[in-house]
């Protein structure tokens, strides 16, 4: 067992399982609020953002990788850094 594997699986589970489920709940709540005449756009946007979390992460990480070239290793040669 590795800490990185644990936190990676936690993030994947949150992004792939929990967030789409929460998005469905938000959309359902938005429909209910719309039917009753309450403000509903905020919760609908929240549901959309829940579905976009994977896309957000992918875009952020891709832009980060493009800027840095590869994974950041400023301490690849620790003694040389000083």
């Amino acid at each position, binding site marked *: *067992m590795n800490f990185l*594997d644990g936190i990676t699986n936690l993030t994947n589970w949150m992004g792939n399982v929990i967030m789409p489920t929460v998005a469905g709940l938000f959309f359902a709540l938005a429909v209910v609020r719309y039917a009753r005449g309450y403000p509903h756009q905020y919760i609908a946007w929240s549901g959309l953002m829940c579905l976009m*979390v994977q896309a957000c992460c992918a875009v952020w*990480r891709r832009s980060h990788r493009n800027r*840095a070239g590869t994974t950041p290793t400023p301490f690849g040669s620790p003694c040389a850094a000083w």
Partner: protein
Amino acid sequence: MINDGIGLLLGLAPVAALVALVLAGLALRNQGSVLQNGRFGLWMFWAAVMLTLPQILSWFSGFGVPVPFSAGGGTALFNTFNVDITNFVNQFVVGYLAPVLAAWMVLRGVVEISEGRSPLYSILGAMFLLSIAATQALLQSWNSGTKFATADVLAGLWTYTASRILPVAAGLAIIGAILNFAFGKPAMRLICCAAGFLTVSALWRLVVSMM
């Protein structure tokens, strides 16, 4: 006799590193953030020191003070004591007690949800406790065996955190920001946090370039 005792203590240094990692996992649960209060970082530092203790002692040779001590050896009594302590830590503390403490942390996380607090630190602490052996192996893999081994281990830990852990943590921060936005809580702080997680290496280079 004194040499045998010192050899015994040097032989127990990796075991002490394991205990330090367990204490770091417990400190991770109790802190509001990883570096706040410093106890998690402090125990991680001591784990790195314990794993590189022979390399630290090699500095004394450079100072002109010979250090003839090496780990292990000594009388049969000391060897038996060394093996017993090592077995106790590996089999009981790391193999049995740490998973039980991790299970209690998960339980504590559920209670924290009911109290309206975030269970993230309890979950992270539980994960850290479940990965003690792998973390020690990771720290040992960064030991260069030179006199700079302690700094090498800390530098390897920084690089691993910045390049592997923080990008994943940025994903968690984005998830937290969206949930905060949905429930009407401040979300911009977590967005900035995610941006900082993804650019910590660039921030480091920026600080270096300013010097």
